[in-house]
Protein backbone atom coordinates (compact mmCIF):
# COMPACT_ATOMS: atom_id res chain seq x y z
CA UNK A 1 0.00 0.00 0.00
CA UNK A 2 1.12 3.56 -0.64
CA UNK A 3 -0.17 6.75 0.94
CA UNK A 4 -1.00 9.58 -1.42
CA UNK A 5 -1.32 12.88 0.44
CA UNK A 6 -3.25 15.38 -1.63
CA UNK A 7 -3.72 19.07 -0.92
CA UNK A 8 -7.45 19.70 -0.76
CA UNK A 9 -9.20 23.04 -0.85
CA UNK A 10 -12.63 23.94 -2.08
CA UNK A 11 -13.26 27.65 -1.47
CA UNK A 12 -17.01 27.03 -1.52
CA UNK A 13 -16.98 24.63 1.40
CA UNK A 14 -13.57 24.80 3.13
CA UNK A 15 -12.41 27.61 5.34
CA UNK A 16 -8.80 26.41 5.18
CA UNK A 17 -6.89 23.99 2.95
CA UNK A 18 -6.04 20.56 4.36
CA UNK A 19 -4.23 17.40 3.31
CA UNK A 20 -6.23 14.27 2.61
CA UNK A 21 -4.51 10.90 2.65
CA UNK A 22 -5.57 8.14 0.30
CA UNK A 23 -4.17 4.64 0.82
CA UNK A 24 -3.99 2.71 -2.37
CA UNK A 25 -2.53 -0.64 -3.39
CA UNK A 26 0.78 -0.14 -5.14
CA UNK A 27 0.21 -0.85 -8.84
CA UNK A 28 2.16 -3.78 -10.24
CA UNK A 29 3.34 -1.77 -13.22
CA UNK A 30 5.29 1.45 -12.85
CA UNK A 31 2.48 3.71 -14.01
CA UNK A 32 2.61 7.47 -14.32
CA UNK A 33 1.41 9.68 -11.50
CA UNK A 34 -1.46 10.99 -13.60
CA UNK A 35 -2.77 7.43 -13.99
CA UNK A 36 -2.61 7.02 -10.22
CA UNK A 37 -4.59 10.23 -9.84
CA UNK A 38 -7.16 8.91 -12.30
CA UNK A 39 -7.51 5.76 -10.18
CA UNK A 40 -8.01 7.91 -7.09
CA UNK A 41 -10.50 10.05 -8.98
CA UNK A 42 -12.61 6.92 -9.48
CA UNK A 43 -12.65 6.48 -5.69
CA UNK A 44 -13.25 10.13 -4.90
CA UNK A 45 -14.66 12.15 -7.77
CA UNK A 46 -14.23 15.43 -5.87
CA UNK A 47 -10.43 15.53 -6.43
CA UNK A 48 -9.68 18.31 -8.90
CA UNK A 49 -6.65 18.57 -11.18
CA UNK A 50 -5.97 19.65 -14.74
CA UNK A 51 -4.92 17.17 -17.40
CA UNK A 52 -5.19 16.85 -21.14
CA UNK A 53 -2.65 15.19 -23.43
CA UNK A 54 -1.25 12.68 -20.89
CA UNK A 55 2.14 12.70 -22.65
CA UNK A 56 4.00 15.82 -21.51
CA UNK A 57 2.99 18.04 -24.40
CA UNK A 58 0.17 20.23 -23.14
CA UNK A 59 1.66 21.20 -19.76
CA UNK A 60 -1.73 21.11 -18.02
CA UNK A 61 -0.92 18.80 -15.13
CA UNK A 62 1.96 20.71 -13.58
CA UNK A 63 1.96 20.16 -9.83
CA UNK A 64 4.25 19.98 -6.84
CA UNK A 65 5.29 16.35 -6.39
CA UNK A 66 7.05 15.62 -3.10
CA UNK A 67 8.28 19.21 -2.99
CA UNK A 68 9.46 19.44 -6.59
CA UNK A 69 7.41 20.79 -9.47
CA UNK A 70 6.79 18.44 -12.37
CA UNK A 71 4.26 17.03 -14.78
CA UNK A 72 2.15 14.19 -13.36
CA UNK A 73 1.75 12.55 -16.77
CA UNK A 74 5.47 11.94 -17.32
CA UNK A 75 6.50 11.28 -13.72
CA UNK A 76 6.55 7.55 -12.95
CA UNK A 77 5.38 6.69 -9.45
CA UNK A 78 8.67 4.88 -8.83
CA UNK A 79 10.35 8.26 -9.21
CA UNK A 80 7.76 10.17 -7.19
CA UNK A 81 7.39 7.80 -4.26
CA UNK A 82 9.39 8.45 -1.11
CA UNK A 83 9.10 6.24 1.98
CA UNK A 84 5.92 4.76 0.52
CA UNK A 85 4.35 8.21 0.33
CA UNK A 86 3.54 10.64 -2.43
CA UNK A 87 2.76 14.23 -1.53
CA UNK A 88 0.86 16.22 -4.14
CA UNK A 89 0.36 19.95 -3.85
CA UNK A 90 -0.65 22.67 -6.31
CA UNK A 91 2.07 24.69 -8.04
CA UNK A 92 3.41 27.07 -5.39
CA UNK A 93 3.05 30.84 -5.55
CA UNK A 94 -0.16 31.00 -7.56
CA UNK A 95 -3.66 31.33 -6.06
CA UNK A 96 -5.45 28.00 -5.66
CA UNK A 97 -8.78 27.69 -7.42
CA UNK A 98 -9.49 24.20 -6.10
CA UNK A 99 -7.30 21.29 -4.93
CA UNK A 100 -4.44 21.00 -7.45
CA UNK A 101 -5.83 23.60 -9.84
CA UNK A 102 -4.18 27.03 -9.70
CA UNK A 103 -5.11 30.37 -11.20
CA UNK A 104 -2.58 30.96 -14.00
CA UNK A 105 -3.64 34.56 -14.74
CA UNK A 106 -0.45 36.14 -13.37
CA UNK A 107 1.70 33.63 -15.25
CA UNK A 108 -0.06 34.32 -18.57
CA UNK A 109 0.02 38.09 -17.95
CA UNK A 110 3.82 37.90 -17.88
CA UNK A 111 3.85 35.75 -21.00
CA UNK A 112 1.62 38.33 -22.70
CA UNK A 113 4.00 41.11 -21.62
CA UNK A 114 6.91 39.79 -23.68
CA UNK A 115 4.84 39.84 -26.90
CA UNK A 116 5.26 36.15 -27.80
CA UNK A 117 4.91 36.48 -31.54
CA UNK A 118 7.22 37.25 -34.44
CA UNK A 119 7.53 40.97 -35.21
CA UNK A 120 8.99 42.00 -38.52
CA UNK A 121 8.30 45.30 -40.20
CA UNK A 122 9.90 44.45 -43.55
CA UNK A 123 7.77 43.58 -46.54
CA UNK A 124 6.64 39.95 -46.22
CA UNK A 125 7.86 37.62 -48.98
CA UNK A 126 5.45 35.73 -51.21
CA UNK A 127 5.65 32.52 -49.24
CA UNK A 128 7.45 32.67 -45.91
CA UNK A 129 10.34 34.33 -44.10
CA UNK A 130 13.35 32.08 -44.48
CA UNK A 131 16.33 31.63 -42.19
CA UNK A 132 19.57 29.75 -42.48
CA UNK A 133 19.97 26.38 -40.76
CA UNK A 134 22.51 28.07 -38.44
CA UNK A 135 19.97 30.72 -37.41
CA UNK A 136 17.33 28.06 -36.95
CA UNK A 137 19.68 26.13 -34.65
CA UNK A 138 19.76 29.13 -32.31
CA UNK A 139 16.13 28.45 -31.44
CA UNK A 140 16.78 24.92 -30.20
CA UNK A 141 16.28 24.69 -26.46
CA UNK A 142 13.97 27.70 -26.58
CA UNK A 143 10.90 26.90 -28.66
CA UNK A 144 10.19 23.59 -26.91
CA UNK A 145 8.71 25.25 -23.81
CA UNK A 146 5.15 24.04 -23.18
CA UNK A 147 4.26 26.77 -20.64
CA UNK A 148 3.51 24.33 -17.84
CA UNK A 149 4.66 26.98 -15.31
CA UNK A 150 6.77 24.46 -13.36
CA UNK A 151 9.79 26.77 -13.65
CA UNK A 152 8.17 30.10 -12.84
CA UNK A 153 6.30 28.69 -9.84
CA UNK A 154 9.51 27.19 -8.43
CA UNK A 155 11.24 30.57 -8.58
CA UNK A 156 11.26 32.58 -5.31
CA UNK A 157 11.70 35.83 -7.25
CA UNK A 158 8.46 35.03 -9.10
CA UNK A 159 6.69 34.15 -5.84
CA UNK A 160 7.47 37.58 -4.38
CA UNK A 161 6.90 39.69 -7.50
CA UNK A 162 4.73 37.83 -10.01
CA UNK A 163 3.39 41.15 -11.27
CA UNK A 164 6.83 42.66 -11.95
CA UNK A 165 9.37 39.87 -12.50
CA UNK A 166 8.66 38.25 -15.86
CA UNK A 167 9.69 34.80 -14.64
CA UNK A 168 11.81 32.07 -16.25
CA UNK A 169 9.16 30.68 -18.62
CA UNK A 170 8.29 34.02 -20.18
CA UNK A 171 11.95 35.10 -20.25
CA UNK A 172 12.85 31.91 -22.10
CA UNK A 173 10.18 32.83 -24.63
CA UNK A 174 11.37 36.44 -24.75
CA UNK A 175 14.82 35.19 -25.66
CA UNK A 176 13.31 32.79 -28.20
CA UNK A 177 12.10 35.85 -30.17
CA UNK A 178 15.19 37.97 -29.42
CA UNK A 179 17.36 35.19 -30.86
CA UNK A 180 15.14 34.68 -33.91
CA UNK A 181 16.82 36.07 -37.04
CA UNK A 182 13.40 36.86 -38.54
CA UNK A 183 12.37 39.14 -35.67
CA UNK A 184 13.38 42.78 -36.10
CA UNK A 185 12.17 44.19 -32.78
CA UNK A 186 15.19 43.13 -30.72
CA UNK A 187 15.90 46.63 -29.39
CA UNK A 188 12.27 47.17 -28.39
CA UNK A 189 12.10 43.78 -26.72
CA UNK A 190 15.26 44.50 -24.72
CA UNK A 191 13.99 47.97 -23.86
CA UNK A 192 10.85 46.39 -22.40
CA UNK A 193 12.98 44.25 -20.08
CA UNK A 194 15.40 46.93 -18.91
CA UNK A 195 13.70 47.91 -15.63
CA UNK A 196 15.08 46.62 -12.29
CA UNK A 197 12.44 43.88 -11.98
CA UNK A 198 11.69 42.19 -15.33
CA UNK A 199 15.02 40.38 -15.77
CA UNK A 200 17.35 41.62 -13.06
CA UNK A 201 15.28 40.02 -10.29
CA UNK A 202 16.67 36.68 -11.46
CA UNK A 203 19.38 35.87 -8.91
CA UNK A 204 20.44 32.65 -10.60
CA UNK A 205 18.84 30.35 -8.04
CA UNK A 206 18.36 27.85 -10.89
CA UNK A 207 15.28 26.12 -9.52
CA UNK A 208 13.86 26.64 -13.01
CA UNK A 209 16.56 24.49 -14.58
CA UNK A 210 16.16 21.88 -11.87
CA UNK A 211 12.44 21.35 -12.41
CA UNK A 212 11.90 21.87 -16.15
CA UNK A 213 10.17 18.70 -17.42
CA UNK A 214 11.51 19.38 -20.94
CA UNK A 215 15.10 19.75 -19.72
CA UNK A 216 15.33 23.34 -20.93
CA UNK A 217 17.60 25.97 -19.45
CA UNK A 218 15.77 29.25 -18.76
CA UNK A 219 18.74 30.42 -16.71
CA UNK A 220 20.95 30.36 -19.79
CA UNK A 221 18.35 32.39 -21.72
CA UNK A 222 18.12 34.92 -18.88
CA UNK A 223 21.92 35.18 -18.82
CA UNK A 224 21.94 35.87 -22.56
CA UNK A 225 19.27 38.57 -22.17
CA UNK A 226 21.30 40.17 -19.37
CA UNK A 227 24.43 40.07 -21.54
CA UNK A 228 22.56 41.77 -24.37
CA UNK A 229 21.16 44.41 -22.02
CA UNK A 230 24.51 45.12 -20.37
CA UNK A 231 26.95 44.95 -23.24
CA UNK A 232 24.75 45.67 -26.23
CA UNK A 233 25.62 42.22 -27.53
CA UNK A 234 24.31 41.87 -31.06
CA UNK A 235 21.86 39.23 -32.20
CA UNK A 236 24.37 37.98 -34.79
CA UNK A 237 26.80 37.08 -31.98
CA UNK A 238 24.43 34.66 -30.27
CA UNK A 239 26.09 31.29 -29.97
CA UNK A 240 24.04 28.16 -30.50
CA UNK A 241 23.15 26.51 -27.21
CA UNK A 242 22.52 22.82 -26.80
CA UNK A 243 19.46 23.90 -24.87
CA UNK A 244 19.72 21.16 -22.31
CA UNK A 245 20.51 21.85 -18.68
Amino acid at each position, binding site marked *: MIDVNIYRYNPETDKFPYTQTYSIKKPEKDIMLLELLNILKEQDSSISYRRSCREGVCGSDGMNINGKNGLACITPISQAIKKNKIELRPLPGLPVIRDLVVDMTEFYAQYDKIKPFLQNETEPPAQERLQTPEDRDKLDGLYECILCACCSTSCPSFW*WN*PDKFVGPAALLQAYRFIADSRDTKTAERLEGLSDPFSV*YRCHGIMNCVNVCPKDLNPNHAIGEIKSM*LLSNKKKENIIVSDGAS
Partner: protein
Amino acid sequence: MKLGKLIWYLQRYSAIYFLLFLGYMGLIGFTERFSFQFITQSFTFKLSLSIFIILACLHAFAGLWTIGTDYLTKRTLGFVSPSLSSYADFFRKSFEFFFISLGISLVIFYLFIIWS
Protein backbone atom coordinates in the same frame (compact mmCIF):
# COMPACT_ATOMS: atom_id res chain seq x y z
CA MET B 1 21.55 54.43 -18.38
CA LYS B 2 18.53 52.35 -17.42
CA LEU B 3 17.89 51.86 -13.71
CA GLY B 4 18.14 48.07 -13.88
CA LYS B 5 21.51 48.28 -15.62
CA LEU B 6 22.73 50.98 -13.24
CA ILE B 7 21.93 48.91 -10.14
CA TRP B 8 23.49 45.80 -11.70
CA TYR B 9 26.73 47.63 -12.50
CA LEU B 10 26.73 49.38 -9.12
CA GLN B 11 26.61 46.07 -7.25
CA ARG B 12 29.26 44.35 -9.38
CA TYR B 13 31.75 47.20 -9.65
CA SER B 14 31.42 48.09 -5.96
CA ALA B 15 32.11 44.44 -5.08
CA ILE B 16 35.23 44.54 -7.26
CA TYR B 17 36.32 47.75 -5.53
CA PHE B 18 35.84 46.11 -2.10
CA LEU B 19 38.17 43.32 -3.18
CA LEU B 20 40.74 45.79 -4.50
CA PHE B 21 40.51 47.83 -1.30
CA LEU B 22 41.04 44.68 0.74
CA GLY B 23 44.16 43.98 -1.35
CA TYR B 24 45.33 47.55 -0.82
CA MET B 25 44.87 47.18 2.94
CA GLY B 26 46.87 43.96 2.85
CA LEU B 27 49.58 45.65 0.83
CA ILE B 28 49.77 48.50 3.32
CA GLY B 29 50.04 45.96 6.12
CA PHE B 30 53.10 44.42 4.45
CA THR B 31 54.83 47.50 3.08
CA GLU B 32 53.96 50.41 5.36
CA ARG B 33 53.88 50.84 9.05
CA PHE B 34 50.16 50.64 9.64
CA SER B 35 49.75 53.35 12.23
CA PHE B 36 47.13 55.85 13.26
CA GLN B 37 49.44 58.52 11.86
CA PHE B 38 49.46 56.83 8.45
CA ILE B 39 45.66 56.57 8.40
CA THR B 40 45.22 60.24 9.20
CA GLN B 41 47.95 61.56 6.93
CA SER B 42 47.99 59.46 3.76
CA PHE B 43 45.85 61.18 1.14
CA THR B 44 45.61 57.99 -0.97
CA PHE B 45 44.40 55.95 1.97
CA LYS B 46 41.89 58.59 3.03
CA LEU B 47 40.53 58.89 -0.50
CA SER B 48 40.26 55.13 -1.06
CA LEU B 49 38.63 54.69 2.35
CA SER B 50 36.12 57.44 1.55
CA ILE B 51 35.24 55.77 -1.77
CA PHE B 52 34.94 52.45 0.08
CA ILE B 53 32.46 53.91 2.58
CA ILE B 54 30.33 55.58 -0.10
CA LEU B 55 30.27 52.43 -2.24
CA ALA B 56 29.52 50.22 0.79
CA CYS B 57 26.44 52.34 1.51
CA LEU B 58 25.32 52.28 -2.13
CA HIS B 59 25.93 48.52 -2.31
CA ALA B 60 23.92 48.02 0.86
CA PHE B 61 21.19 50.26 -0.50
CA ALA B 62 20.78 48.06 -3.61
CA GLY B 63 20.62 44.89 -1.50
CA LEU B 64 18.28 46.29 1.14
CA TRP B 65 16.00 47.83 -1.47
CA THR B 66 15.76 44.40 -3.12
CA ILE B 67 14.93 42.81 0.23
CA GLY B 68 12.24 45.44 0.89
CA THR B 69 10.61 45.02 -2.51
CA ASP B 70 10.72 41.22 -2.14
CA TYR B 71 9.56 40.68 1.42
CA LEU B 72 7.73 43.85 2.48
CA THR B 73 5.00 43.78 -0.12
CA LYS B 74 1.25 43.27 0.21
CA ARG B 75 1.59 39.84 -1.32
CA THR B 76 4.45 38.57 0.82
CA LEU B 77 3.15 39.97 4.10
CA GLY B 78 -0.25 38.60 3.12
CA PHE B 79 1.22 35.10 3.51
CA VAL B 80 1.89 35.96 7.17
CA SER B 81 -1.34 37.79 7.89
CA PRO B 82 -3.97 39.45 5.65
CA SER B 83 -4.31 42.36 8.08
CA LEU B 84 -0.54 42.89 8.08
CA SER B 85 -0.51 43.14 4.28
CA SER B 86 -2.57 46.35 4.34
CA TYR B 87 0.37 48.05 6.09
CA ALA B 88 2.94 46.71 3.60
CA ASP B 89 3.55 50.03 1.83
CA PHE B 90 4.01 51.79 5.16
CA PHE B 91 6.46 49.13 6.39
CA ARG B 92 8.45 49.19 3.17
CA LYS B 93 8.64 52.99 2.96
CA SER B 94 9.65 53.16 6.64
CA PHE B 95 12.29 50.49 6.07
CA GLU B 96 13.64 52.38 3.04
CA PHE B 97 13.58 55.69 4.90
CA PHE B 98 15.43 54.06 7.81
CA PHE B 99 18.27 52.55 5.79
CA ILE B 100 18.66 55.57 3.50
CA SER B 101 18.85 57.90 6.53
CA LEU B 102 21.24 55.53 8.28
CA GLY B 103 23.42 55.27 5.15
CA ILE B 104 23.61 59.02 4.61
CA SER B 105 24.33 59.61 8.32
CA LEU B 106 27.10 57.01 8.30
CA VAL B 107 28.69 58.47 5.16
CA ILE B 108 28.65 62.00 6.59
CA PHE B 109 29.90 60.80 9.98
CA TYR B 110 32.81 58.76 8.59
CA LEU B 111 33.81 61.34 5.96
CA PHE B 112 33.86 63.96 8.69
CA ILE B 113 36.15 61.77 10.82
CA ILE B 114 38.46 60.95 7.89
CA TRP B 115 38.85 64.44 6.51
CA SER B 116 38.63 66.67 9.59
